[in-house]
Each structure stands twice: as structure tokens, then as C-alpha cells.
């Protein structure tokens, strides 16, 4: 088992990165089609002058960071509350948000926004997108956090209470620290879901909130697009570096302990 697991893990990582590898190769392809016809870095050069693309990237980052923060905080609190005390309608509403097909969520939100904004004289925009994203990320956050809470021993908080901690202190100093890995996982999941969402976003976005997936979809609608591949490489490369750096820091702090 000790020998099998690392090999297995490497195989899964290879499976996950295989498509990423091919698309990065094609980002250097001279041809616009997925047929190799010579090396070029021209697509990367074009990215910097593409205003639509840059704006989309910034919008996506802003939306994903804000929405995943809102959803993770609200979701962690709700998960904790549900663990303490069941609330049937919140649980059912969360289920509903999970099982509603994206297109239905998108269309119904659009209809609702259009109806309300008509009277308020508002327009679709960043605000409506962030609201929608926080909404559909919430259930993911609650599920991940609750799954962790269910493995915790309720006696811990009782012990804290016996030692004189009030509810808030018991949550803040006993449960929350134990929850952190799940909160991190929830935040990651929410960020990923939000950053990659196309269907709902494309419906509730307004003039000022075209996101990266929207731009990418429009550009790649016709098939492989080397410029889109180049963006993907830059994004994963950039975020990958950040992750490695963070990993280094974590690793060194662990070994210094």
C-alpha cells in the first residue's frame, strides 16, 4: 500500500494534467486549427493588446474572489448552525440550489432581475453576477463544511462550555480552528466553480461585467483557438506559481516546527 499509493497518485495527476499539457503545446502552434504547423509565440503577444480579454480576466477575478468569500463565510456559518440545530427549509433550499440545472437557475434569475430592475431602473452588471455566484456557491461551501463537522466530536464544545466558554467562544476557539481545512477546501471549490461558470454568468451579466469564460466561449465557439490556449496557459501558469510558492512556505513552516 505504501508503495502503491504514490504511484497511483502520480497516475491521477497525470490524468488531470494531460489535457492541460496538450493545450499548452497548441498555444505555440502556428495554425489556428489543432494541426501542428510550426512553432510561434505570436498568440501570447496578441493577448496583451486584447482589451476585451483583459477586462474579462479582471472581472472574473473580482467576481470569483468576492463571491467565493461571501459564499464561504455564509456557508461556514450556516454549516455550523445546521450542525447545531436543523432547519428544514434552509436544508431544502440548499438542496434545491444544488439540483437546479444551471440553465434554469440562469434563466430564472435573469427573469427575476429583469422584472425587479425594470421598476428600480437598475441594470444588470457586476452586482447581479456576484449575487448569483454567491447564491450557487453557497451550497458547495455548506456541504464541504458540514461533512467535516459531522466527523467532529460535539463533546469538545460541551467541554469548552463546562470550562466557562460562551457559545461564541466555543465556536471561535474550539470548532473553527478544527474546521479550517474544510473552510479552505470550501473556498477553493467556490472559487473554482465561480471562476469557471459560463451558463449562469452569461445570462445575468450586463454591459460592464463580461467575464473571462464568456469571452473565451465566444472566442472558442468555433473550436480550438490558440489565443484562448495561450490565456489558459498564462492563468494556470501564474496561479500554479503562486500555489508552488505557498506550498514552499507551508512546507518550510511545517519542517521548522
Amino acid at each position, binding site marked *: 500500500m505504501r508503495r502503491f499509493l504514490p504511484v497511483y497518485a502520480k497516475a491521477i495527476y497525470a490524468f488531470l494534467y494531460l489535457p492541460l499539457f496538450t493545450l499548452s503545446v497548441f498555444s505555440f502552434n502556428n*495554425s*489556428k*486549427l*489543432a*494541426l501542428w504547423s510550426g512553432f510561434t509565440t505570436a498568440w501570447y503577444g496578441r493577448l496583451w*493588446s486584447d*482589451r*476585451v480579454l483583459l477586462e474579462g480576466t479582471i472581472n472574473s477575478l473580482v467576481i470569483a474572489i468576492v463571491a467565493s468569500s461571501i459564499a464561504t463565510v455564509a456557508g461556514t456559518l450556516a454549516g455550523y448552525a445546521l450542525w447545531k440545530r436543523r432547519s428544514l427549509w434552509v436544508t431544502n433550499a440548499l438542496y434545491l440550489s444544488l439540483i437546479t440545472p444551471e440553465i434554469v437557475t440562469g*434563466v430564472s434569475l*435573469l427573469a427575476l432581475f*429583469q422584472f425587479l*430592475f*425594470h421598476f428600480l*431602473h437598475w*441594470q*444588470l*452588471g457586476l452586482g447581479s453576477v456576484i449575487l448569483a455566484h454567491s447564491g450557487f456557491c453557497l451550497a458547495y461551501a455548506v456541504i464541504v463544511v458540514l461533512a467535516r463537522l459531522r466527523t467532529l466530536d460535539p463533546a469538545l464544545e460541551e467541554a469548552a462550555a463546562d470550562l466557562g466558554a460562551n457559545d461564541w467562544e466555543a465556536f471561535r476557539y474550539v470548532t473553527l480552528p478544527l474546521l479550517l481545512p474544510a473552510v479552505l477546501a470550501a473556498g477553493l471549490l467556490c472559487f473554482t466553480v465561480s471562476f469557471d461558470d459560463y451558463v449562469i454568468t*452569461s*445570462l445575468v451579466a*450586463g*454591459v*460592464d461585467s*463580461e467575464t473571462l469564460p*464568456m*469571452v473565451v*466561449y*465566444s*472566442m472558442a*465557439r*468555433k*473550436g*480550438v483557438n490558440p489565443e484562448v490556449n495561450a490565456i489558459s496557459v498564462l492563468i494556470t501558469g501564474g496561479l500554479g506559481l503562486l500555489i508552488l510558492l505557498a506550498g514552499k512556505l507551508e512546507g518550510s513552516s511545517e519542517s521548522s516546527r
Partner: protein
Amino acid sequence: MNVYNWDNYVAHETVADFEKLHQCQVRYGIYASAEEMLAKVISGNSGWDVVFPSNSFIGPMRELGLLLQLQKDRLPNLSNLETRFQAPEWDRTLDWCVPYMHSATGILYSRTAPIAPRAWADLWSDAYRRRVTMLDDPAEVFGACLKRLGRSVNAVDENTLQAARDLAIQQKPFLRAYLSEQVRDQIAAGDVLAAQMWAQVAQVVIDAAPQLAFSFPAEGFALYADNICILQESRHQELAYEWVNYLLEPKVAATIAEEISGATANAQARALLPERLRHNPVLYPSDEVLARGEWFRPLPAKAQQLRDRYWTEIKSA
């Protein structure tokens, strides 16, 4: 001003040049499907000023009160349009839209294929077994089947639609997939030998893979045109008119048509194009070929419902 368009439908510098010329800010958004655009602007407070709907959307959008009636004296460049686009059948007097680019549906095929497809019927032949694709679009698949039956692409009666459905189901054993433009990599690589495809996309693929060719099927085929429209809700009508007029300028339109390999509806612009594009038979088929073409019209609700159910039956057959 806010312009909402398909991706890759103006040249690289078009927007920047216009901004310099008029000292203004243009927000250029792109959409991936006509339905996405319609869902947005249908509310009448989307914030967009100019959109690019195709011919069959003009009637519905006008009836929904979304389009601005154009004051033609503010668009002197309208006269640059080709004669057949001065009075197109979806808007005889150009009161609501200005034709921009046009295209048609035909067959993109590899010259290495056993036979060169001249008709839709060839896509039902054993020569292409499992090496042919149709567009993933009910209007197009029904269009081809209806043409094979010798009917209009806009046919609405139940019996005709049923016959078209049966024909499409017969084709399934020969089909590799229902795939839209994404098939271009596969046909260029030789996986697929023939594909139902739009002429403009086909031209781009042929440019990259010269072993491919395009044919306009003998039984007839569907025609398309995308149009420039100003929305009723526009808060920047002054600039919107300037933008439409600017896109109609021969030089501007020619640069766009050259960069995207598109077929412009602008006669003056076409005259400025390099020979390779100006007389390209895929982009600008001869009048004799065009005579077999037919414009898509908006489908009545009942026929659309029927067609949609048949489409589900075809795909899950």
C-alpha cells in the same frame, strides 16, 4: 457606447480607430449565441446600443419593439450596399436593420474523399459511412432534409416535417456526430471526410487546409445574413448612427471582410478586396448558384414546437 457582437466580427483596429475618430469610449462585448443576445436585450434595459442579429431574428425583434426605426438620411453610406441587400426580404425598405455579412449552408469536404458531394443526398451514401457530420442545429438538419424532399427550408406542415425527420433518422448510421464549427479540426485532420457547414467558416478552414473544398448542394440550401441594428433602448443614438455609418464605409468594411475572411454585403467594400477574396466562389457564389438558395424565416410557434420534438427524436434514435 456599447456594442454587442459575435466574436471576430470586426477587424483588430476597427473599434480603436472609431474611438479616435469620434473621441469616445466604446465597450465592445461579445456573445456566443444569438439566443444569449436575445435573452439579454428582450428586457429593454440591457444597456447595449448596437447588436448584430441574423435575418430570421429581425421580424421577431421588431415585433417585440426592441429595434429602433432607422432614419435613413442619417446613414448616407447605405447606398454602398449591394443591390440585393438594398431591399432584402426580411426588411424590404431597410427601416430596421442594415445587412452586414452574409453566408450560406453547404458541404465542406475533403478532396481525398471517394466522391465529391454535389448534393445533400450524397451525405446519405455508403462512401461516407461514419465519416460525415451534420451541424448540431435543428434548423440546419431539417433544412437539408427538407431540401432533399424538394421542399422549402421554412416548411411548417406536419407531414412534411415528419418526412424530414424520417430522412434524418435514416442518416444516423452514416453519421459520425452532430457537430457545429468545432468539426473544423477533425475535417482538417482527415477524421471526417464531409461536413455540413457554413460557407464563411468553411473558407477559414480551407485557408488553413487546402485539401478541402466546399460545394453548394444541388437540391438547394439555406442563406444567412447578419445585420446591424440599433436598439430602441439606446441612450447613445447619435454615436450609434455614426458607428453604423462607419461600418458601412468601403474601406472599413473591406478591412473587416479581409481580416475575418467574411462575405460583406457592401458592394463598394467588395470592390476593394484582393482578388483572392473578391471573386471567391465560396464567399460570393454566382447568381446561378444563389438562385438555389433560400432565406430562413422565423418559424411559427406550433411548427417550432413540432420540429423541436422531432429533433429530440432524431438525436436519441
